[in-house]
């Protein structure tokens, strides 16, 4: 009887530990989610975007947003290259939840900075920025500033999340 109880105890503790470990990321993203560059290509095919400057290197994320390379697993980022229009699309798959939190903080700073810069002289673009926001979902963080932000975020969500 004692042996059975101890065996039951050991199995239960092991199972609980394994379940705890598996659930660390608590993500609802698809196991076969495509690379974020591919998600952007889908968006390009469905939404008319202005000429965008693509940030190609992870180091660009640090230069423009302060996002550390070590926090990033995959990303796609592009900025309206006119310097006047404020469209900006940033998708980041962070390494873990803590990394995603740091990425979210960086993108929120960028968002605040863009809004403040445009409020005084570029009210149309400031209004566009105000309608948009930074979003975090599990290890994924996004900032979509566009008149078509809702549609873009829908395509992104459908591609990445369950």
């Amino acid at each position, binding site marked *: 009887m004692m042996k059975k109880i101890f065996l039951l105890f050991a199995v239960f503790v092991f199972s609980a530990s394994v379940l705890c470990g598996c659930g660390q990321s608590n993500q609802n993203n698809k196991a076969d989610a495509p690379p974020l560059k591919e998600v952007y290509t889908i968006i390009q095919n469905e939404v008319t975007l202005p000429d965008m400057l693509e940030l190609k290197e992870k180091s660009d994320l640090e230069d423009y947003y302060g996002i550390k390379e070590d926090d990033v697993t995959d990303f796609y980022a592009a900025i309206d290259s006119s*310097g006047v229009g404020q469209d900006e699309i940033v998708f980041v798959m962070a390494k873990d939840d803590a990394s995603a939190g740091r990425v979210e903080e960086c993108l929120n700073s960028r968002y605040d900075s863009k809004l403040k810069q445009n409020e005084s002289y*570029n009210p149309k673009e400031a209004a566009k920025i105000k309608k948009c926001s930074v979003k975090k979902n599990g290890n994924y963080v996004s900032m979509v500033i566009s008149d078509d932000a809702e549609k873009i975020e829908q395509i992104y969500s459908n591609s990445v999340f369950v």
Partner: protein
Amino acid sequence: MNLQKRISAFLLTVVLIISVILTGCNNNSTATQKPTQASQQTETHKATEATTTTEAVIQTEPVGTSDSKVFDNAVIVGDSITLKLDYYCQANETPLKNSVFLPSGSLGWTNAQWDIDNEAAVHPTYKGSTVLVENCAEITGAKYVIIMLGMNDIGLYGIDDSISSAKSLIEKIKANSPEVKIYVESVTPILAGMQRENLNNENVRAFNEKLSDLTKELNVEYLDLYPLFADENGNLRDEYCGDPQAMGIHFTDAACELWADYLQKNVK
């Protein structure tokens, strides 16, 4: 038997407690995550600040050809007009791409000197952290400072007060980084139909004249960009205006190509 029941009850209680604790540790809700994230973010932010100087020192190591060395060691400061130059240089792989760009929309000689925590200030950011222009060379490790401001001052503060602000800021940069070479760029022309009461090409030219005198007084370099972009009437050429329906002051790629080329020839 009684002892066995007691042990069983004890073990089952332990199992229940452990399972509750384990389930709790896996709770990824925003409410439980936020304090942890906040503390981690604060630590990261501090770490970023602490390592900025080290990173900047690494950046100053000269690489590439002699031409590109200048821009490997340059910081380019400006307003939304310079923001476009930044994007152009990144997209077109010019030597200026390696410079640190610190542009910020609405930035001027005056508001660049506001306190860093001023709610209305639009200080530029460097690797995600807000920085003061007066510290731009210190923070980035640059040996050359190339700066264009004024479009956001002239209309608001008038020519003389704008020049006073320019003098004050240049002196602060020199005081903080006495070894750097400073290049001050003139304000560029405005499209013909976009002249305003106080912000117009006549005032821009008057400002530039005083700015040129100021650079001589302060022993820094002056780069007169105005003629590059002006037509025969002194207005911004149509082909160089990126926002003819809006403000009439921002640039096209063609203008940025000309600007980047001019800087490569004149910043030494």
